[in-house]
């Protein structure tokens, strides 16, 4: 199990390769990568602010919650903060399990939790200046599935 918050970039392929290594007990590996989108407003960069301390606590709580709900074998949550450029990875979530349903459900659950209950705030830089991204009401509705 790995839960990490970092400013450095990471290689999603390497993280997935590691989850697949020496792994003859679990048949299914589901993963998600979130990338910085250039978007319709032509985003030049994105700065992710977070709440150090609380972020780590929340990520560990999500991990514990996922393991309580499903028979997860291995789990990786990695979330970046700081200034990122379009196309750079922001977040990686990977889950391995004996069966694909568990891997998919737990992975999607963790991504929803990160969207709605992890203390991160996005600021986008465009040619006309910087602005804080508003939370989508959709995300909260989606997260309620798990309650």
């Amino acid at each position: 199990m790995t839960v990490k918050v970092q400013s450095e970039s990471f290689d999603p392929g390497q993280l997935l390769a590691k989850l697949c290594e020496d792994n003859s007990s679990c048949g299914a590996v589901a993963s998600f990568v979130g990338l910085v989108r250039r978007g319709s407003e032509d985003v030049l960069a994105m700065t992710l602010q977070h709440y150090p301390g609380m972020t780590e606590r929340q990520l560990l709580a999500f991990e514990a919650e996922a393991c309580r709900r499903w028979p997860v074998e291995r789990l990786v949550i990695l979330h970046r903060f700081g200034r990122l450029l379009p196309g750079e990875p922001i977040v990686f979530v990977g889950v391995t399990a004996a069966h694909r349903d568990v891997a998919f459900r737990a992975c999607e659950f963790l991504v929803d939790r990160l969207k709605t209950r992890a203390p991160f705030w996005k600021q986008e830089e465009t040619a006309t200046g910087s602005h804080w991204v508003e939370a989508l009401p959709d995300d909260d509705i989606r997260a309620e599935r798990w309650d």
Partner: protein
Amino acid sequence: MRVLYFAWLQSKIQKDEEEVTPPAAVKSVGQLADWLQTLSPGHAAVFSERARLRAAVNQTFASWETPLSPTDEVAFFPPVTGG
């Protein structure tokens, strides 16, 4: 009591955090917000938009009714946008 601000709250209040000593009558997150609102025009601007704010006490999400003690770390911020 340590109070932290995130995202657009920081530029309005012009602080990331501050050490405050609210009156003894301040016993909940909501009462703290009411009192902070009186400190400066920046504070007033932030805390008059309560529907756009969320709070945490000791690094756990809290509601306006969450009780406070003087040693708590309280944070105010907009709805999160991670992931």
